């Protein structure tokens, strides 16, 4: 089932949370809503679920306007950040809840409900824990119960709010892989919210990068990582450095010096962005010149902090670990991949 978000705006007591956001999510896609806290990503997810009603705009599911449907009628599987498991019910009853509350006409028989709940517990690898109460489970197990419970209603779409937020790093990685497998097997259209870019890049087919109630960029992990369309996305995704520069008839100058980098565009001040590991040390060739202010060994490379001549910001670059880089020494380098953004 595809989801179309059409110019959705939402404000909480005059504090705007979403400014006219539009977005299309294709059927069967796994999409991450990525952004810092306060970027509106959770609000957008809740609007799609029907837990919040937008001030203006529409949400369409499978081409039909879902804006007027209540949360019950939308038939979405929602996994809450804190799991929201019913503590007075056993695990199996949690999973069966969505089937038990159905009106008599569409409710499966008792035995069938139980069979399906147990089947789902097998599916999420919690066989044998059906008689436990949520308090008797670990965080990762609770997460699986929450997912099984959401899947039990055979949802049209699956929505997850910070699904791995409360878990420790190891469990988090494991569950991430596992969620991808679940998605590939069930084929649900899945949207999850996260503030962890690594998680979003690894898991999602497409990323929606959000900031201050707006969508900054939508794209595949490759597109977002390699071609960020704004300084915000460049800075938010992956590691990056930037310096103030100037564009003069296509040449990029830093501190008035030629760097050997060229782009099309109007003359004027620009910000030059690049990633620390996408630089080459250049001998003799023109490039950015900097003085080493600090250095540390990071895995197979040496990360050097440089004060670039003619720029106020310090930048970080990665150089071969064997390369001499004592503080105070000068280096000339040129970014292999880079991007400029005109300063408004």
């Amino acid at each position, binding site marked *: 089932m595809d989801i179309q978000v059409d110019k959705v705006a939402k404000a909480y007591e005059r504090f705007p949370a979403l400014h006219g956001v539009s977005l299309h999510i294709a059927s069967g896609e796994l999409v991450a809503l990525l952004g810092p806290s306060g970027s509106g990503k959770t609000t957008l997810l809740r609007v799609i*679920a*029907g*837990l919040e009603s937008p001030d203006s705009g529409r949400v369409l599911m499978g081409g039909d306007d879902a804006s007027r449907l*209540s*949360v*019950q009628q939308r*038939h*979405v*599987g*929602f996994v*809450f950040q*804190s799991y*929201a*498991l*019913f*503590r*007075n019910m056993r695990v199996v009853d949690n999973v069966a*809840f*969505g089937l038990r*509350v*159905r009106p008599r006409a569409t409710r499966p028989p008792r035995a069938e409900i139980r069979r399906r709940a147990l089947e789902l517990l097998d599916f999420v690898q919690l066989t044998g824990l059906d008689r436990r109460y949520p308090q008797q489970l670990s965080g990762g197990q609770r997460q699986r119960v929450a997912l099984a*419970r*959401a899947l*039990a*209603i055979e949802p049209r779409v699956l929505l997850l709010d910070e699904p791995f937020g409360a878990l420790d790093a190891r469990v988090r990685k494991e569950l991430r892989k596992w969620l991808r497998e679940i998605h590939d097997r069930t084929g649900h259209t899945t949207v999850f919210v996260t503030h962890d870019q690594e998680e979003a890049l690894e898991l999602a087919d497409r990323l929606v990068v959000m900031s201050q109630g707006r969508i900054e960029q939508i794209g595949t992990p490759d597109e977002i990582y390699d071609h960020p369309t704004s300084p915000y996305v460049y800075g938010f995704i992956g590691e990056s450095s930037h310096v103030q520069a100037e564009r003069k008839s296509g040449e990029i100058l830093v501190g008035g010096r030629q760097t050997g980098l060229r782009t099309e565009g109007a003359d004027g001040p620009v910000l030059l962005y690049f990633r620390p590991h996408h630089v080459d040390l250049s001998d003799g060739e023109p490039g950015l010149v900097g003085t080493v202010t600090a250095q540390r060994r990071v895995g197979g490379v040496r990360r050097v902090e440089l004060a670039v001549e003619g720029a106020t910001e310090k930048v970080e670059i990665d150089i071969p670990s064997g390369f001499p880089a004592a503080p105070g020494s000068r280096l000339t380098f040129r970014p292999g991949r880079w991007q400029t953004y005109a300063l408004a």
Partner: protein
Amino acid sequence: MRRVLLAVALVYIAAVLVLPLVLVFTEAFRKGWENYLSAFTDPSSLAAIRLTLLVTVIAVPLNAVFGVLAAWSVTKYQFRGKALLTTLIDLPFSVSPVVSGMVYVLLFGAQGLIGPWLRDNGIEIIFAVPGIVLATMFVTVPFVARELIPLMQSQGTTDEEAALSLGASGWQTFRRVTLPNIKWGLVYGVLLCTARAMGEFGAVSVVSGHIRGKTTTMPLDIEILYNDYNFTAAFAMASLLALLALVTLLIKTVLELRFADELAGTRRH
């Protein structure tokens, strides 16, 4: 130092709480079992006991329902006047019960605002059972709501949202998710409410009219008996009321011990 403080506290409690309670029972049994029991065969006293139970049976369930509704509204919804509602719920705590009784007299009494209309239509409220029920309801409004609001606040709304997203109706959500979550807080509130409903004196006294056998509840009956120098009967009734209070206290303590976690976040009165 510790011993001194402890001794002071114990002596104080003994003098102020335990001694009077013991005296109530010794006074009640002073003339022996038979006299004690005969106090309860008096038709007027039996009527008083019946009336007290009737009032409690009406006021407590109504206030339990109201308390749940009020706590639900205050904690699950955002609306204008929420702070006002929360303050109003507390009003019976801060207003003297006598004043609350007076309000009903001013409203429903013969000289009252709608008193003449009631008289013309043959409805009796003041100096009759409905007035006593209303006065009791007024003073016991806060108990359940005050118990539930902090509890429901600390539990948040995500459990309810989860139930709704799974297709549950509002009622199913309440019965299967909210009610089990607040169960012990509700029982606790109902107990406190019951104790107060049975023991209320001031507000009920104003609207009752003190017609023995008709409009006297147990506390009022005790006063009348006492003023008639019928000490044994007065203390016998008092002992029964005290016994009910002790049972309530006992259940409350058991609940506190067993369900301390689920009651956490609730205010003590």
